[in-house]
C-alpha cells in the first residue's frame, strides 16, 4: 500500500508517496538520494543509519517512514551551518576517528545527540545514581556510543574526538 508523507529533511520540505513498508532509511537513501545515513544491518544492530528525528537520535532502519509524517529529520548532510562544519565533524577528522568511514555519519549524528542528552542531564547506565548533572567522561562517551559499531576499530579516536568537543 502507498501513502503520502511529508517530512522536513535537513531543512527542506519533502512530500512523497511511499510504500508503507519503506523505512526512513530507504526513503532517505533510495528516494531522496541522501546517502549519508548508511545501511550496515537494517536491523537496529549497528547504528550506521543513525539520524536525528525531531531532535533525538534514531536508527533510521527501524523507523517506518509513514509513522513519522510531519517529522523533522537531520542527517549528516544537514549538520553544517552556513557552510561551517559541526565541531564534531572537524574533531573526527582531526582525531582520525574514522577509517573506512562507513560507520562515521552514524557515529557523528549519535555523538551530536549525546552532547544534547548530557546537557539535559539524561543519565546512562554508567552515570552514578542520583547525579544531578552528567559530565561526559570517557566512560560515559563509550557507553553512550556503544550502539554505533565500528568494524575498523576507531573507538579510541572516536572517544577522543567527542571528548574534545564535550563541554
Amino acid at each position, binding site marked *: 500500500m502507498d501513502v503520502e508523507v511529508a517530512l522536513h529533511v535537513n531543512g527542506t520540505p519533502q512530500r512523497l508517496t511511499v*510504500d508503507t*513498508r*519503506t523505512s526512513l532509511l*530507504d526513503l532517505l*537513501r*533510495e528516494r531522496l*538520494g*541522501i*546517502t*549519508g*545515513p*548508511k*545501511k*550496515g*544491518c*537494517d*536491523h537496529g*544492530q*549497528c547504528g*550506521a543509519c543513525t539520524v536525528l528525528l525531531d531532535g533525538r537520535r534514531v536508527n533510521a532502519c527501524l523507523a517506518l517512514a509513514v509513522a513519522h509524517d510531519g517529522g523533522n529529520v537531520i*542527517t*549528516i*548532510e544537514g*549538520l*553544517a551551518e552556513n557552510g561551517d*562544519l559541526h565541531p564534531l*565533524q*572537524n574533531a*573526527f*577528522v*582531526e582525531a*582520525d576517528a*574514522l*577509517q*573506512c*568511514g*562507513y*560507520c*562515521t*555519519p552514524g557515529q*557523528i549524528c549519535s555523538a551530536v545527540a549525546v552532547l544534547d542528552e548530557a546537557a539535559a542531564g539524561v543519565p546512562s547506565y554508567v552515570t552514578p545514581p542520583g547525579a544531578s548533572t552528567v559530565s561526559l567522561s570517557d566512560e560515559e*562517551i*563509550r*557507553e553512550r*556510543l*556503544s*550502539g*554505533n*559499531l*565500528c*568494524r*575498523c*576499530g*576507531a*573507538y*579510541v*579516536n*572516536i*572517544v577522543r574526538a567527542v571528548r574534545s568537543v564535550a563541554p
Partner: protein
Amino acid sequence: MTTFAAKTVGAAIDRLDGPDKVTGAARYAFEQPVAHAAYLYIVQSTIARGHVRAIDATGARALPGVVEVITHENAPRLASTEDPELVVLQSNAVAYHGQIVAAVVAETPEVARHAAALIRVQYHEEPHDVELHAGREGLYQPDPENVGFEPDTHHGDVESALKTAAASIDVTYTTPHEHNNPMEPHATIALWEGDSLTLYDANQGPHAIRGDVATAFGLEPERVRVISPHVGGGFGSKLFTHGHVVLAAMAAKLVARPVKLALTRQQMFALVGYRTPTIQRMRLGTDNDGRLVAIAHDVTVQTSKIEESVETAAVVTRMMYAAPNRRTSHRLARLDVPTPTIMRAPGECPGVYALECAMDEMALACERDPIEFRIRNEPERDPGSGKPFSSRGLVACLREGAQRFGWQPHTAPAKRRDGNWLVGTGVASSTYPTRRRPTTASVRVNTDGTYRVQIDAIDIGTGARTALAQIAADALETPLERVRLDIADSALPRAGGAGGSMGLASWGTAIVEAANALREKLRTEFAGNVPAEGVEAYVEVGRNPLAERYSMHAFGAQFAEVRIDADTHEIRVPRLFGMFAAGRIVNAKTARSQLIGGMVMGLSMALFEETVIDKRFGHFANHDFAEYHIASNADVLDIDAAWIDEDDPYVNSMGAKGIGELGITGTASAIANALYDATGLRLRDLPLRLPFDI
C-alpha cells in the same frame, strides 16, 4: 633500491578523504546515482547438500512491481564455469546452506524482498557433513600445486628431540568460525551498455574483479569497468570476486536495465566467506638453558566441497623462532559449507595465536620470563628459508614495549587481586610477511606545475589515498597540494588489490618509479621544460628481486592487562599496547589508526567472535550483529600503538612494510596469556570464556 628524501612521508597528515567522510559526501558502491535502476534480492538455499527439484515463482511473478525472477532454469549461461565461486544459477546443485538458488528483480527494494519471500523451492536433500573436529575422517594433505604453498615441512627429528627435552609441552588450541563483517555490506550496481559492463562495486581491488567478471561472461577485459571510489572496509572478504557480483551483472543483462544489489548482513554470512575454524596442536621442547630444541605446529582446517582453500596457520612457525628440530603440517577437511576466504592476516592471525600462547606456556614450563624466553630463542636467520632477514625488529619491540608498558618479569602466574578484580598481564609477538606485487602507474606533469598520478589502487579505510599522495609528493619533490591522485577504477593503470598488506608497498613503489621515469623523460627529451601538452610517464614494476635473497617480515610485541570480575567472570582489557617494527611509517596518524584497528579486531577475536554452525541444518545460526558480537565502544578501553625507527632498504622504494594485518596478530595471545597470569587457568579455545568455577 630507490630511496627518496622524505618530507611529507612520515608526517601525521589528516586523511584526505576525511572531510567527505564526515559530511556524508563520500559515496559508496550502492550509492552511486544510476538512473532507472531495478533492485535485486537473493533467495538462499535452506539445505546444505542436494539439489533443487522445483521452484514455484507464481506468487512472486504475480506481484505488481516484479520485473523478473531468476533461477537456474532461466539464468543466462556463463562463458566460463572455471571459478566455482562464480558459477551462480548454472545448475540445480546445492553445495552449502545459504547458496544462491534464485533472485528477484523488482522496481523497489520492498517489492523485491517481498517477492523473494513468496518463492517456494522444493529440494531433494542429501545428508550433509559440516563439522570440523580433530581426528575426524577424511582429513587429507592438500596438494601443494593446488594451494600454492608447501603444506608440510620437516627439519631434524622432532619426536626424539621432544622425548629427550628438559621440558616440553603438547597442547591444542582452537579458533572458531569468524566472519569478516566489514561495516559496508557487499554491494554491486551493474550497468550494461551494449556489450560493455560497468560495475560500481564494493571490493578491495577493481582490476581483479574486472578480470574475473570478464572471464565469467566471456568478454574482453576492456569491456568491463569496475569503479569503487569508497569502500566501507573489507578485511579480506572483498578481495576476491563472489557470486553475487556475477549475479548482478547477469540480472542486469536479463532485464536490460541497471540493477542494484546489496547483500543483507544475514546473507553475507554464507555468501562472502569467513575464516575457517582451526585446530592447532603445538609441541615445544627446551633444553636446560631454556633454548628450544623442538617446535611442531600441526594444523587442521576446513574448506568447502566446491573449492580448496587453506588457512596457512603453521607457516609463521617456520620462520619465527630458532630450533634445530621443526615440523609443520596442514590437514584439510572438505565439508558441505560455504568456502572460507581470507580474513585479516589469513594464516598468521590464528597461527600466531597458537604459537604465541604456546611460547608463553613453554616459557613458564622452563621457568623463564616470557620476554626473556623469546629473546633467547631469536633466530639469526629465517629458520625456514635459511635467508637473512631484511630487518627484524622483534627483540627491539619486546624490550622497548616492555619498558613503556611497565612489564614485570615473571616465571609463574602472578594471580594479582585488586578488590573484586583478578588482574594479570600478558605479552605476545606480532608478525606479518612483507611482500609486493607487480604494479603499474602513470604520472603526468602539467605546465602549471601540478601532477596527476593514476593507478588502480584502492582505499578501503586503510588511508592509502592519503599515504599514496604523500609518497607521490615526495617522489616528485613537490608540495602535497600539487598532486592529484586517481585511484579505484579499473580503467586506470593495473594494480593488485588491498590485500596481504601489499597495497601500499606495491602501489607506492610504482608511483616512485613512475616519478623517477617522468623526471628522466623530462630531462632527456624536453631539456627540463614541460611542453604545453604536458609529459606523462608510465611504468610497470615487477616483483622485488631482493625477496629471493632476504626474508622480509614486519614484527611487533603486544602487551595486555586483563581484569576479571571475580563474581561474574566478565573479562575486561583495560590496557593494550603494541610496539611495532614495520620499516618506514608513511603517515603517522593513519598508521596508528590502522594498527590500533587491528588490535581492536584482535581483542574482539579473543573475547567475542564466534560463528556457530547448526549441524542439523548446516547454517550459521548467529548470522547478525546482535548474535555475532564484534567489539563495541564500551569493550575497548586504553589501546595504543607505537613503533620503533626501522630502516629497511630492501623491501621497496619507500622502505615501508605493510601494517594492515600486523596489528591483529598477537593480540588474542597477549590477552589469553594475561588471563592465565590473572587466574592460573590456561584457556586454549577462542573466544575466551571462563568456566563457572575458577
